[in-house]
């Protein structure tokens, strides 16, 4: 097989779209010849690209069919959870971060801050220390009523030097 016949065989393969039967070196050689031989390039210029030809052989969707497809996509997007990123709803690549990502992080930070505040408040409410300082007795307390139950006796003792304050004392006779 001479070079001319070999070239013709390769061009025939190209014309019939059998590119898978060509080696990379053969493709490179064909490309080089086409770039340097206008007549040869003219021969293949009228040929339909294999993929395009295959597409033309397949039945094309009608406008109604395209419209139905777009309607299905729109309906599916509307039914997706609101938190679902737009890329996930449409099937697009997930390279773009969800738009609510930073907002969620902000609320997480706020939640952590709120938890700290609650912890401090709870500690202050339940802890034994008194932020206000000394316990101050009620100097002018008014004892409106007093009942003591069981085997006990109740008395009111006045404590304090200059500023007396009443202490209700229960004499416990029951023991523990």
């Amino acid at each position, binding site marked *: 097989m001479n070079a001319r016949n070999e070239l013709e065989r390769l061009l025939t393969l190209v014309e019939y779209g059998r590119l898978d039967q060509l080696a990379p070196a053969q493709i490179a050689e064909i490309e080089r010849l086409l770039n340097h031989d206008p007549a040869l390039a003219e021969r293949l210029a009228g040929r339909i690209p294999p993929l395009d030809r295959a597409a033309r052989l397949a039945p094309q969707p009608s406008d109604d069919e395209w419209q139905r497809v777009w309607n299905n996509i729109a309906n599916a997007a509307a039914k997706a959870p609101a938190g679902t990123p737009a890329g996930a709803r449409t099937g697009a690549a997930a390279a773009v971060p969800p738009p609510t990502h930073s907002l969620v992080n902000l*609320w997480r930070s*706020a939640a952590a801050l*709120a938890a700290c505040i609650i912890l401090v408040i709870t500690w202050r409410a339940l802890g034994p220390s008194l932020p206000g300082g000394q316990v101050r007795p009620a100097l002018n307390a008014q004892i409106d009523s007093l009942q*003591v139950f069981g085997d006990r006796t109740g008395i009111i003792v006045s*404590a304090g030097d200059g500023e007396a304050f009443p202490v209700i004392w*229960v004499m*416990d006779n029951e*023991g523990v």
Partner: protein
Amino acid sequence: MFRATPAARVAFFGLTLAGLAAGAPSALAQDVEVTVLAIRATKSNNDVSPELRDIAAQLRKQFQYTGFKLEQRRAGRTALEKVHTATLIGPYSAEITPTAASERTVQLKCQLLRRDADGKKTAVLRSTVTVEKGRYQLFGGPSLGDGDVLIMAVTGK
């Protein structure tokens, strides 16, 4: 449309609670903040909690106890005529009900309860006192064993 996430709900709840606790104007403005202290008075040592230093000096002169330890502090906000329950030390607990409040004073119905061995609570004392807001009324005497006694201090504001 933004929808509240669980984290957002937690944050909203926490910030609301913090605002209320910080004294922000709210619907709870008519409530009373009740505080109950449980103090252990003893003759076995001279230890005095820092918060009780002033009052301990005066109690020592009147009673035979030398040590005063603040063991519990129970605070809570409650509405008038609503009971505030506080667990104290030993078998004791308290039920404090604010019954009236003015600009300077608050009236408190105080009940000291003792839990028996079978778990039943019985009243030790019941008293209604009117005190200046922030000032503590003292109730003492119930035994904690080993010679120690309980002193309950109650206030409202």
